[in-house]
Every structure is written in C-alpha cells, then in structure tokens.
C-alpha cells in the first residue's frame, strides 16, 4: 500500500490534495511528470500529475478534482489509508530552459499541474508571469504557492468574484501585447488550452500544453492515449504529456475524452448511491 500521509481539501471540497509515501518515485520525479494510481482491487488506473515532491521525506503530492467515480473514490481515502498501486514517474519532464519571459497559464486543477513547472521556470532564471483562473473565487487553488513560484501573478475569475473579471485568455492577451514573451505554457481544461493556443498563434509565441488523454498503462504499450500532433499520432504517456500546442488536434482530443461518458455516469451514480445508503 502507498500510504496517504496528508490529506487536504481545497476549493470547497471539490479538489483534494494527497501527500503519498512513495520514496522511489519521489527520488526520480521531475516537473511535468505524472503517476498512475489505483485505489483498490477493482479500481481503475488513473493518471495524475505530481504537484510537488519531497525526495527527502519520500513523498509525492497529487491534487485532483473530483469529477467521477474514481476521483470520488480517491477522495474517500483518509490519512493513514492509501492506494493499492502507484506507478511512476511517467511521461517526459518539462524542458526547463532559460528563455527570458515565460507566461504560465493555469485553469482549474491545471494550476496544480502548472505549479512545479512555474517554480522550475523561475529557478532557471526566467522572468515568470503566471496567470491563473477559476470559475469563481472559492474554486481558486494554490494562489499563495503560485505567487511564490512566479515573479508576477495575475488572477482571473469567470464571475468576477475575485481578481480580473473574465477568462485567463483576456489577461494573456494583454500580457502578449505588452511583453516580449518567449514561451507560454498553458495547462487546464481542453477548451482553455485550445483558446490559449489560438491566441498565442496570432502572436507567434511558442506554446506548450499538457494533454490529459485517457490512459491505461502509461508506458506506451496500449495506444489508448494517442493524440494527433502535427498530423502524426503520438502517445501522450511517453511522447508527452507536453506538446507544441500549435500542432495539437484539440477536436480529436475532446472527442476521445468522451469515449466513455455514459459508462462513467453510470459508474458514478452507482457509487454515489452506495455512499449514501
């Protein structure tokens, strides 16, 4: 068992942080990499990015949004309990280089994925502008951490309850207008990444996105996670998860993400009923 040593709820309980004891993975993990977790014998293999690690304590942290059966099941696990299986670190690490001004755009739980990358970009000597957003103030996560990890943090909420009223892309546009941006990293829901890349394309600024395609093994043996990048089929688990956003076929990705919508609903409903009774 991989023990949960710390559990914290965020964004009104819709997002959960788990610190998990996994010394071998902690020793190896780099920003941008992910793990695959399975709660129990009947569980599904779920990929989650490592939000931070502490190699000395042998700990990795994941931050996940409760969206369906598996993440709901994960969220029932308390400190002292744990996951039956944790596999990693998987995927390629983010290429961290000194480029100049880098903008890190995170939406929703994407902020959690963005945090270690932001920090590493700053440590590499870049001037880092971070833009984070959420639907509403209560759902915003890691604001303090992102402030510390960047030089300049800009916050947006869709409903205007906090920070800039509007989407992260509005603030990104202003930033692209004013600054000489060398690289944009955009991580969040697929529509957000699509809009970010559409915008940066206009400004001709290189953009990395992190693709959350459905996965099984995470080692390149099944092809479940395949995505089209520049007209070629790539496996997000081994060739990614980060790709050049200007080349990604987001339409295909969105459709593939909906492969099991009906079954997922059925599974989640059953789980909710079982929890209530």
């Amino acid at each position, binding site marked *: 068992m991989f023990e949960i040593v710390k559990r914290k709820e965020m964004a009104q309980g819709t997002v959960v942080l788990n610190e998990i004891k996994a010394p071998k993975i902690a020793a190896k993990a780099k920003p941008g990499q992910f793990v695959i977790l399975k709660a129990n014998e*009947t569980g599904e*293999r779920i990929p989650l990015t490592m939000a931070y690690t502490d190699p000395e304590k042998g700990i990795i942290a994941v931050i996940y949004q409760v969206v369906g059966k598996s993440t709901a099941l994960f969220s029932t696990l308390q400190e002292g309990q744990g996951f039956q299986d944790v596999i990693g670190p998987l995927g390629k690490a983010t290429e961290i280089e000194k480029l100049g001004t880098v903008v890190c755009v995170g939406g929703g739980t994407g902020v959690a994925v963005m945090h270690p990358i932001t920090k590493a970009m700053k440590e590499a000597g870049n001037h880092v502008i971070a833009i984070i957003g959420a639907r509403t103030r209560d759902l915003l996560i890691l604001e303090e951490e992102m402030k510390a990890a960047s030089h300049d943090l800009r916050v947006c909420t869709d409903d205007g309850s906090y920070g800039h009223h509007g989407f992260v892309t509005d603030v990104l546009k202003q930033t692209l207008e004013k600054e000489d941006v060398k690289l944009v990293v955009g991580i969040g829901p697929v529509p957000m990444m699509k809009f970010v890349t559409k915008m940066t394309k206009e400004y001709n600024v290189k953009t990395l996105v992190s693709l959350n395609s459905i996965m099984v093994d995470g080692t390149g043996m099944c092809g479940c996670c395949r995505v089209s990048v520049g007209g070629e089929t790539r496996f997000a688990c081994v060739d990614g998860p980060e790709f050049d956003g200007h080349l990604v076929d987001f339409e295909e990705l969105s459709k593939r993400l909906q492969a099991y919508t009906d079954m997922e609903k059925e599974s989640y409903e059953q789980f909710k009923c079982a929890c209530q009774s």
Partner: protein
Amino acid sequence: MGEKNDKKEKKSKKEKLPRQQMPEQKADVRKHNFDEVPLGYTKQMAMQEASRCLQCKKPACVEGCPVEIDIPEFIRYIQAGDFTKAIRHIWQRNSLPAICGRVCPQEDQCEGLCILGKKDEPVAIGHLERFAADYERHYGTGELPPKAESTGKRVAVVGSGPSGLTVAGDLILKGHEVTVFEAFHKGGGVLIYGIPEFRLPKEIVAQELNFLERLGVKIQCNEVVGKTTTLDELFEEGYEAIYLGVGAGLPRFLNIPGENLVGIYSANEYLTRANLMKAYRFPEYDTPLVKGKDVAVFGAGNVAMDAARTAMRMGADNVRIIYRRSREEMPAREAEIHHAEEEGIQFYLLTAPTRFMGNDQGRVSGMECLQMELGEPDDSGRRRPLPVKGSEFQLDCDLAVIAVGAGANPLLTQSTPELQLNKWGYVIADEKTGKTTKKGVWAGGDIVTGAATVILAAGAGRQCSNSIHDYLTIGW
C-alpha cells in the same frame, strides 16, 4: 470414452483408438460467459489417450518441442496412472505446463510431428500435458522442490511474463536471490493482461506466481524499469545479473484514415482493459470498455481470435475477423480458429481495410475494405496479397480492434544506450547464452525474437538462466 482399453493390444490396433476429444462448453453457452472453454480430461480419458502413444524409439514429437520435453516418457507415466511422476518429468524441461498445455501451438510443434498423425490423428500431447499439470494443481502435495544452498548472489528479472518467470524459478532453485520487477500492478505478462480468462484462467497464472513466491522469489510490481529505476541503479543496489524479459509491448496500428476515432482499439488496449482490468465485469470493476454490435478485428493470429471472442462475449451481434491473406496463412492456433468459428465469428479473408468512417461524436460507425488476391511469394515465403481494383465495399462497425502484431517498446532500451538493438528495436542477444552487449545483462523472449510464443519465451529463459548461473558461479 466407454471404449475398452487393453494395454497389451498390438500397435496396429492401438492406432484405431480414436483421439480422446476434450469435453468443452457448448458454443452457444460459452459465447455468453468468460469461463474456460475446454474442460479438461478425466483420469480415464487421459490414460486412454496416453495409451495411444506408440512409445517411439526415436520420438519425432520431442524434436518438435522447443524445450525438448521427454514426451513419450511422461505419457508412459500417465498411461500407468502415475500422474505425480508424469508432472515431475515435465517440470525438468518446462516449468509452466498448465499454461503451455493450454496455449502452445501443438499442431506446429510436437503433435505436428507425431508419427500417428501421418495416417490418423496425433496423440493429444497438449491435452495430456494440461491434464498432468491440472491433476497436480488439484491433488498434488504442493511440496516445494529442493533449493540449492544460498549463494548470496542477487539477480534482478525485469518483466514477469513466461520468460521472466522461468528465469526466476530456475535461479531461485540454484540458490540465488531473485527479485522480479514488473511495470504493471500484477505479474504474469501477456498471460495475465493479454490471454483471456476463457482460454487461460487467471487462477492458474496466480498459482504459478504464488509457487515462485513460496520459493522465495520477490515480485515487485509497479516498477517501470527505465523510469522508476534504471539498470545501472539496479547494479548499484547490489544486483549482480539482470535478465530482461520485457516482451514486445508496442502496439501496431494500420495507419489508415480515421484510426483515432473512439471505439478503435489496439489489441493490447482492448485485451488489457478486458482481462487485466476486468472491464467485462463493469461496473463491479471500474474500467469501462466500448461494447460493439458490429465488431471488426484486424489480423488472424491468437491475439485477433482472443479479441474477437472477447467482443462476442461482451454481447456483439456480428464479429468479423478481417485478414488480408488466406486461411492457410492464418497464424492462430488451429484450436482457436475452430473455437472462434463455432462461436459464430465471421471470417473475411483476403480483405484489407482502407479507412474508417465516424459519426458526429467522433465514434467509429463504419469502414471501407478492399478485396485482395494472392500474388507472388514475399520475403516471408507467403504469397503477397494484392488489392483487386474497384473491389471496395463498406461494412458497419462500431468497435474495431487492431491485432496486426506488436513491436519493441523503446521505454527501457532508450534509457540504456549500451544495449545494442537490431533495426526493429529488439535487443540483440547471443543465440546460445542470451547475453546482451551490456555486461551482466541477459535478454530473452519477445523482446529479442519479436512477438512469438509462450514456450519460446520460456525456453529462452531457461537458456539464459543457465548462462546467468555460470556467470554468477564462474564468470562472464
């Protein structure tokens, strides 16, 4: 079954005894469940079948066996009713008989050469091997074989498929300390994630793993070598020899338009979801799987048959095997083709897909195929299929599984530049010893030969374990 059997009958008469058919679940029943199809011999059937063997002086069957099991000898024990001796005799050459008895292509190996087969049907060597192993599993003492005195040497085995398990079993008995590292959360390799329950009950694989653990083998799952740890780190940790049995875990696709539509799977994904993740028991198990009404499976090997028969059991109306060559070239085991046919799988031979069509939701809804005809022999000696002009036709299809072979997964080899690979990315290993170009590292099974068979992988494991033992006791 009720036939009389006088052991002293003359050879000519023996030949007349018909091959004992193994009882199996009826096709119209089994195509709705995942239980094993053939049910196994009774003692009487096994002894009767064993009595058909001519006990040849120069047994051709043994030459056909990749690990040279002394076949007439173990059959003799079965005939005499000494099943314990029979299985111990098989173990000398093959440590996975319950598995091999079920999945080996006997018609191309031992049974293909059996002298009886010239005029009549060959002895059912596979069924007898299976019987001996199952008998031991059910009634054996479970007594462990003796282990040599500890050498204090540590060996790492990467991959827990048949080749890795064979190496682990051999070396633990020779007194070495063995740890198996497996990327998946469960051990067994293709035996657990690929071959379905109805052909190889998972309980049998679990029992093999349990046997090794009882012998002292450590099986460490969730370790992706190349990611979680590297070969050099394993050496630093004190392992003195490493065996690579990582299989051919790279899916091949058709590279035709529409292949990324939802509902199109590689066989690896489809079978892993179904078998390892038990998607056929959704929602009791959490992993989902697309259920198709009109299913197309591309390829005609064991993998294709497994995928087709799984789809049938998941409730399909039509399951079609689409294969670009002819029936003779179909690489699957004879028994599986036969079982598939009985279950109502349709065979579209000399047919090649050209593209998939999808609906608004990006789900596959149909495909277009071309008729083929056979031309001159190609490099593989098989006649090359050539498209017939203007023969395009369309089929409905809401689930497609691509089972046209596998390649070498580069994950581990990329992290180990000293390992020399051939042009297809497979590890180059010495034919006799299995030594790779990196000191202290051996390789065998599918990662060396490309996708092959369980027994070839196990046989390679046996060769390598001998060489590893020599290295640990004598030197490289």
